[in-house]
């Protein structure tokens, strides 16, 4: 007999060594940049682990959501937007408005009930309102999950001494995250809403920026972030982590789970057929996958309950309840069709011949 490890080694011997790494990093970065250009919206991605400060690092959409790589020859639009946002925030800060506040202690507090509601989206408009500014957000997502989407107007206090020009206000755009008090609902509102002082974040060259607070001054519970996307992820993870623990669902490998099992209806069966029915019933009831598969292969049973060969169809877990159905069918009275005993139950069919061969297990 050959050793399995040697067997597997032989299967890969002579494989051509190729460099699969070249170009991967660049392609990844091009894709990330194109996602920003194309979507222009922050998406809170679910991911675990630490967040690193980086203009380009951090999480993104799930692998299934990644767009195909697109070559681009210019980085200017993204950089210009970040610079424009920074100019706007600098102009607001020039007004000298310095709210007396304490930063939200932690991301968890920001998303806890009664504390805050987070909206994540894209800036669609910035306009003056008296001496202040109103930023309209095209909401893509709310945290905790749920809540209405649509547009929300955010009021930024600046006072008359700001230095934001009309042209600079128009240039503001891109992803935005706003933390609102939980009591606030934008439904039916016509007046703009003030966010938490440290709850208004635009993307800027160094990461995220706020007119009143520096992210670097946030307390230690706030990890470094490099984008609105990363900040949304921090908040989402905090919300998930704060949920009461649910016990994990019990793994289900096999549907057969009778505690007081019924018995095979052997009325009219030949001794050989009854023996087979009892055996199959016991194997299905005890989730003996190996024995059932072996029996089906040995008898050449026509298994038609799913895709693939007999082995593939009878392997557990059986999400469609095949094992339970097999056992249940055998508890019904069989119909005699020539040399065959046909057990039928709820669309499932088991056939055993008079010699005890397991002929069929099918589903209609």
């Amino acid at each position, binding site marked *: 007999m050959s050793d399995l*490890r040697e067997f597997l080694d032989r299967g890969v011997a002579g494989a051509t060594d190729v460099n699969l790494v070249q170009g991967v990093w660049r392609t990844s970065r091009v894709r990330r940049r194109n996602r920003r250009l194309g979507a222009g919206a922050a998406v809170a991605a679910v991911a675990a682990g630490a967040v690193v400060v980086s203009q380009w690092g951090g999480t993104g959409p799930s692998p299934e959501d990644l767009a195909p790589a697109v070559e681009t020859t210019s980085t200017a639009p993204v950089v210009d937007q970040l610079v424009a946002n920074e100019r706007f925030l600098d102009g607001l800060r020039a007004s000298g408005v310095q709210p007396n506040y304490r930063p939200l202690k932690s991301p968890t507090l920001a998303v806890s009930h009664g504390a805050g509601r987070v909206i994540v989206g894209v800036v669609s408009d910035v306009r003056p309102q008296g001496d202040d500014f109103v930023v309209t957000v095209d909401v893509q997502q709310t945290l905790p999950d749920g809540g209405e989407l649509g547009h929300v107007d955010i009021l930024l206090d600046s006072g008359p001494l700001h230095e934001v020009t009309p042209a600079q206000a128009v240039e503001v755009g891109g992803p935005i995250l706003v933390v609102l008090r939980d009591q606030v609902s934008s439904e039916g509102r016509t007046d703009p809403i003030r966010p938490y002082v440290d709850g208004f974040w635009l993307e800027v060259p160094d990461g995220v920026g706020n007119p009143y607070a520096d992210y670097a001054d946030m307390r230690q519970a706030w990890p470094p972030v490099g984008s609105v996307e990363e900040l949304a992820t921090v908040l989402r993870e905090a919300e998930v982590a704060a949920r009461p623990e649910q016990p994990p669902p019990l793994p289900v*490998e096999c549907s057969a789970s009778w505690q007081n099992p019924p018995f095979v209806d052997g009325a009219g069966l030949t001794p050989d057929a009854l023996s087979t029915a009892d055996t199959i019933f016991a194997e299905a009831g005890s989730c003996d996958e190996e024995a059932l598969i072996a029996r089906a292969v040995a008898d050449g049973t026509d298994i038609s309950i799913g895709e693939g060969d007999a*082995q593939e169809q009878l392997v*557990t877990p059986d999400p469609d309840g095949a094992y339970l159905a097999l056992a249940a069918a055998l508890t019904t009275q069989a119909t005699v069709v020539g040399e065959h005993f046909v057990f039928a139950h709820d669309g499932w069919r088991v056939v055993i011949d008079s010699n005890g061969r397991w002929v069929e297990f099918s589903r209609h």
Partner: protein
Amino acid sequence: MDDEQREFEAWAVSRQQGFLRSAILLTGEQASAEDLVQDALLKVADRWSRLRAEAPDAYARRIIYNGAVTWWRRRKRETPSAELPDAGLAGRSEAWVAGADVRAALQALTPRQRAVLVLRYYEDQSEQQIAETLGVSTGTVKSQAHVAMRRLREEFAIVSAEEVR
């Protein structure tokens, strides 16, 4: 080249051949295996700033093994089973040609059986690690390994070192 890129590429270079060989055992073909591995590396690169401190190997392995199942299902729909070729023997080394029967034998297993076998006996993963990679229970890992081993033993006279002991 910044530090992140350097770090990622050092990790990827050190892992790529191992991943490629596992992927060859999963798919039976070099070209498909290369696609699987490169896709996994790209997805790790997308998340490198987060994965670098955790378990990029485990993440990459999950992408490769689950990608192999998807690849097999897609291929099965498109190609009649009787025609599944072991492609690309022309111009290959003697060792590669000699291993064609191994790759064919593995293709006779179901995708999950193959995945469990390769993870267990080629990558030396524990049952718990295999369960986490494939998203199944350890009980399923055991039963799949048992069925796969029985088939290899009965049809190809292959045994694991544990069975020899």
